């Protein structure tokens, strides 16, 4: 009976998370378009529903009911698999992300995370690197020159930043002593991990920007050069999945991991501990702030060339991550 209860509990919880993630992603498109609009002194979606609230629904309706083209003599199986491979891993990272500490509501203890795996961070990294295959398959299966170049470019960038990301998270793990994300958050009760490993924070910011294809590393959809990068040949919902997965769900989830690693998950802000706000709200406030920071960078900076990006990854980000490990080691020796 016990197993049956947990199985039903987990399926319902994961259903809520996935549907919630879909809706969140849809409305994050609206957040981005409104933010981009107001940065450019224009209001963004305004007339579709009150201040554009119905805009994501209109976009979803149109994209779902569009004709689904597959270019001739393209690899049909890989063509369909690619969009799923890019989309599913970013949702799977949600399984390990803890949103708050467990709390009771009239007798039931609710755990606001799907599972607390003690190798949570490694799992998240593994899911992140699966989307690399989605990109390469999309580039290869579209059977045309532009997606091919776009796909290979994105693969080169991703490999470069996976390595830098891997070394950069070593800092917080050394301080927290455990891989489980819940453990890392609990270890940040006193002092946030941002203070000792500031270098790792910089590396993670650039890695997340590269992972999600945001502007300084926006090679895959370099409008001017490659029309649409590897999404050029995709039409209706298959196309819808790519920006949804990469720009919104991956950014949301990876900024959640950044908040957990560096800004102390659901711990309250250092001086405002006495406010009666529950942990979960703190977490979502910080998450929203980091997400808006990525948007802010996306709409301001120009774009690097591909070889400059990979050069930056190997020559600057990797040494910074290693130096950070050294600094954290000294910090632990001094402060224990």
């Amino acid at each position, binding site marked *: 009976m016990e197993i049956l209860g947990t199985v039903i509990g987990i399926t319902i919880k994961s259903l809520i998370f996935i549907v919630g993630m879909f809706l969140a992603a849809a409305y994050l498109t609206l957040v981005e378009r409104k933010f981009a609009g107001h940065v450019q002194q*224009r209001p963004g979606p305004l007339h579709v529903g009150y201040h554009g609230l*119905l805009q994501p629904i209109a976009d979803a309706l149109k994209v779902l*009911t569009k004709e689904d083209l597959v270019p001739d003599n393209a690899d049909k199986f890989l063509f369909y698999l690619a969009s799923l491979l890019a989309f599913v891993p970013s949702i799977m990272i949600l399984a390990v992300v803890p949103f708050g500490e467990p709390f009771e509501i009239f007798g039931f203890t609710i755990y606001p995370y799907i599972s607390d795996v003690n190798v949570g961070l490694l799992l998240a990294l593994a899911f992140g690197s699966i989307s690399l295959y989605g990109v390469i398959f999309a580039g290869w299966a579209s059977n045309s020159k532009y997606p091919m170049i776009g796909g290979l470019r994105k693969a080169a960038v991703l490999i470069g930043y996976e390595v830098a990301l891997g070394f950069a998270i070593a800092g917080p793990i050394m301080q927290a002593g455990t891989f489980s994300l819940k453990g890392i958050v609990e270890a940040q009760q006193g002092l946030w991990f941002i203070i000792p490993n500031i270098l790792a924070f910089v590396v993670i910011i650039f890695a997340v920007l590269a992972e999600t294809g945001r502007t300084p590393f926006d090679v895959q959809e370099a409008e001017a050069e490659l029309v649409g990068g590897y999404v050029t040949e*995709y039409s209706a919902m298959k*196309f819808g999945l790519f920006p949804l997965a990469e720009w919104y769900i991956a950014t949301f989830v990876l900024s959640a991991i950044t908040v957990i690693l560096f800004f102390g998950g659901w711990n309250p802000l250092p001086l405002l501990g006495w406010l009666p706000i529950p942990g979960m709200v703190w977490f979502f406030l910080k998450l929203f702030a980091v997400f808006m920071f990525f948007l802010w960078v996306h709409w301001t900076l120009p774009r690097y060339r591909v070889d400059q990006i990979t050069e930056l990854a190997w020559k600057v980000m990797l040494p910074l991550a290693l130096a950070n490990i050294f600094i954290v080691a000294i910090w632990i020796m001094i402060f224990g």
Partner: protein
Amino acid sequence: MAIKHNSGIILTTVEEVLSWGRRNSLWPASIGLACCAIEMMHTAASRFDTDRLGIIFRGSPRQSDVLIVAGTVVNKVAPMLKLIYDQMPDPKWVISMGGCSSVGGPFPTYSTLQGVDRIIPVDVYVPGCPPTPQALLWGIMQLQKKIKEKKEGKVWDEIPVREVPTASQPLLEKSPFGF
């Protein structure tokens, strides 16, 4: 037209909801050929913002449903434009912006295509050389009206041709569901 039942429930058909969705998120494949492309950019810029109406300018024809032909279509580009039109997924429309793409405009020459509707069917003609951004927005709204009133499978009896505007249209009042 969604009928508001007295008990507050909105009754509407699936076709209307779909056409509402398509009307309010028209993604044009911007084929900027000549001077009209500059005016199209100005329509998409901050002052006459098309993002308000849910219009994002997509690069590739695969992801777009409106083909705004902005500028002179020259004979040499005609087959490529036909190719772009064929690549677009199905519910697709064409706005011919400016005199040059509508009827060849002020260029009755050996190398200009006298009207883009000789190679692809056109839904809305926007005269003007170049039409001001507000004229283009009015053209887009005419297309949205056409999407709204065109029933699937029925021949759309166009508005009688003689209705030529003599004065500027009155201001629309804001509807909560967009156009």
